[in-house]
């Protein structure tokens, strides 16, 4: 848990992707020159790709921020529908620009068309939702596919158009790291920066929108307008990403960095920053690698890099990752096992002293009686004892008899006392029957903090170890 996997993320993901792509794309080149050229791209020395890599990195950051809110608003599918609905707009914008006498490929014009038709798609979803009984998911499925289909048809038609070259328009579908002119670069960077800034400025308002819309409305915040604004930011990020990532996969760029960031933190601002960082790294690495593998679609490579970071986060994320959670669960299980063993020994010693009429002391007990006491199998008891010996809680174990060490005895009496205080509390204050109380106390006592124990003592006005409210000897 003390390892910080996110620090080594870039290195790992880079080498992994390099390994995958190496034989496919640059079989002829040696590994050394390939890595050398990759470095030239990554460090922005290569003029042909510098603008693309830099703008994709910025886009990654902006989409990480916007995507965080999209994810928290549970609108991931809406984003997907929006991006697919961009396609007809591209074709129509091309037609209009050709009709006006241009080449039809001015990026600003194409992106304007894309964002208009994307937002029209969203509007269509909202209209279906309001006027019919069709549910959200179906409405989005319909709009997504119909707009995309329409776009494919329009693109197919413009290819046939005499006198106008529509070649390259289809790269908006899968993304392509082509070289870029300064003017386009300025446009994309400005859009990314603007939507990123808007997102950060509106953090407070968007938090309210995503967490508790009704409450926000009750205070008079224009929730509907905020919602539109958020969709407009999603649209902006989408059209910026059209060229590099492509409209099919841009949703991954919006959602995955935010989802990955969620594994690392429980704080929205930190989640925003992390998602921005993850998005930026994915954009930088992904577009660099795809620049060296021009025959592979850029969008797919960028998404794979993002997915790789996501998987690492899912496994190692310190807040919600699978491994930290498993480790914590195992630790608790071990702690509970140890506490059960010590308490069982303590209770057996107590039984002996009651039977003898002697004072309670750290007497030797038999292995067999320990197994019988809690219906444990000998194998399980051996395992527990082995662990307890490592912690120096048990001594003089010869296979038949065993005894607690001094430290173990102290620990055992403390654990037993907590258990019984908790039992007493449940009986006296929570009205739980005495024969049920043992099991309930079992689940809670292991997590009692010193503060809670003090409070228990106060409530029960007891500082000594109380006797058990139910029989402990033999087995109940």
């Amino acid at each position, binding site marked *: 848990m003390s390892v910080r996997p996110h620090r080594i993320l870039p290195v790992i993901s880079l080498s992994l992707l390099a390994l995958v792509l190496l034989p496919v794309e640059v079989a002829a080149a040696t590994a050394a020159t390939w890595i050398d050229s990759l470095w030239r791209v990554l460090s922005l020395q290569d003029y042909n790709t510098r603008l693309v890599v830099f703008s994709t990195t910025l886009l990654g950051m902006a989409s990480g921020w916007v995507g965080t809110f999209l994810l928290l608003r*549970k609108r991931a599918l809406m984003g997907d529908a929006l991006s697919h609905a961009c396609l007809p707009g591209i074709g129509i914008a091309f037609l209009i620009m050709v009709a006006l006498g241009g080449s039809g490929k001015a990026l600003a014009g194409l992106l304007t068309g894309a964002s208009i038709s994307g937002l029209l798609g969203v509007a269509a979803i909202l209209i279906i939702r309001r006027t019919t009984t069709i549910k959200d998911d179906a409405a989005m499925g319909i709009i997504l596919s119909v707009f995309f289909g329409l776009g494919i048809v329009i693109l197919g038609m413009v290819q046939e158009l005499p006198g106008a070259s529509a070649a390259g328009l289809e790269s908006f579908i899968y993304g392509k790291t082509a070289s870029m002119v300064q003017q386009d670069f300025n446009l994309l960077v400005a859009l990314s920066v603007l939507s990123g800034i808007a997102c950060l400025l509106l953090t*407070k308002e968007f938090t*309210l929108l995503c*967490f508790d819309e009704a*409450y926000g409305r009750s205070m008079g915040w224009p929730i509907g307008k905020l919602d539109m604004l958020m969709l407009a930011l999603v649209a902006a990020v989408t059209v910026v990403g059209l060229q590099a990532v492509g409209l099919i996969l841009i949703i991954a760029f919006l959602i995955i960095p935010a989802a990955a960031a969620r594994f690392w933190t429980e*704080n929205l601002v930190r989640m925003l920053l992390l998602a921005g960082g993850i998005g930026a790294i994915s954009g930088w690495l992904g577009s660099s690698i795809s620049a060296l593998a021009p025959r592979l679609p850029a969008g797919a490579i960028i998404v794979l890099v993002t997915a790789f970071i996501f998987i690492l986060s899912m496994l190692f994320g310190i807040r919600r990752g699978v491994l930290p959670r498993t480790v914590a669960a195992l630790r608790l299980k071990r702690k509970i096992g140890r506490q059960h063993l010590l308490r069982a020994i303590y209770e057996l010693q107590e039984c002996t002293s009651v039977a003898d009429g002697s004072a309670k002391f750290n007497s030797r007990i038999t292995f067999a009686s320990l197994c019988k006491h809690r219906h444990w199998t000998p194998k399980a008891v051996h395992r527990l004892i082995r662990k307890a010996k490592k912690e120096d809680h048990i001594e003089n174990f010869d296979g038949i008899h065993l005894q607690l060490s001094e430290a173990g005895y102290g620990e055992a009496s403390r654990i037993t006392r907590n258990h019984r205080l908790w039992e007493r509390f449940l009986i006296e204050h929570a009205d739980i029957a005495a024969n049920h109380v043992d099991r309930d106390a079992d689940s809670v006592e292991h997590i009692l903090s010193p503060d809670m124990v003090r409070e228990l003592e106060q409530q029960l006005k007891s500082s000594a170890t109380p006797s058990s409210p139910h029989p402990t000897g033999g087995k109940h």
Partner: protein
Amino acid sequence: MTSLAHETIHATAHEHPADVPLAIHDLTVAYQRKPVLWDIDLNIPEGKLVALVGPNGAGKSTLLKACLGLIPLTSGKVLFYGQPLRKQRRQVAYVPQRESVDWDFPISALDVVTMGTYSQIGWLRPVRTKHRELARQALEQVGIADLAERQISQLSGGQQQRVFLARALVQEARFYLMDEPFAAVDAATEVAIVSLLKTLQTNGKTALVVHHDLATVTQYFDWVILLNSRIVASGPTQTVFTADNLRKTYGGNLSLLAEAGHALSQLGRPLS
């Protein structure tokens, strides 16, 4: 059109003085043409703790939402202190149902309470230390200041409810609308909410609370509204909260348990 405008002026001037926290006139709300609330006419007097009681599906939450403009009204009007809500936002605080939000949201208890100060902060400005301080005080008022930094999914149901109450408190409103604050909370939280309500009342505030535990109505509230799509009865608890009115409200659905609870409360022996 003219007659409607005329009516508004007439009503504001004569029937809805500024010291009536909530006046509802001829309110009807319909979901897909099926009326949920029907011809509601209601006046809530200042300084009362008001229980809104009725069976499931009676439209209790809908009434609160309609008052707050969260759902469209089919007809009618709602006035807070003699004026429409948009002019009285600062006077009104809303405590939504606990289930209405996603408690897995990456936010701390303190940050949720701070939302109550957002209107005071205004557009685009960041939350400052003084606002967090106000939120911390509100958390203290509901007795969970020590949990301020916890992520909200790590709070118990009762603690989450207290976070919502603190968020409304920090708004420093005069009138509170609470949607089932007592639903599924532990005994300690119930006590805390009751004492909070009494404190609000002592400070001259008014609260309208959706409540479903008939056994505690007489104990906690001095005014009661019985609702089942329409108003069955409304007034001081002693005169309105009768077995007869309850039967009218719940029809044949008044469960034996609720009836027994009510009978017990009439004997003056609160269940605890």
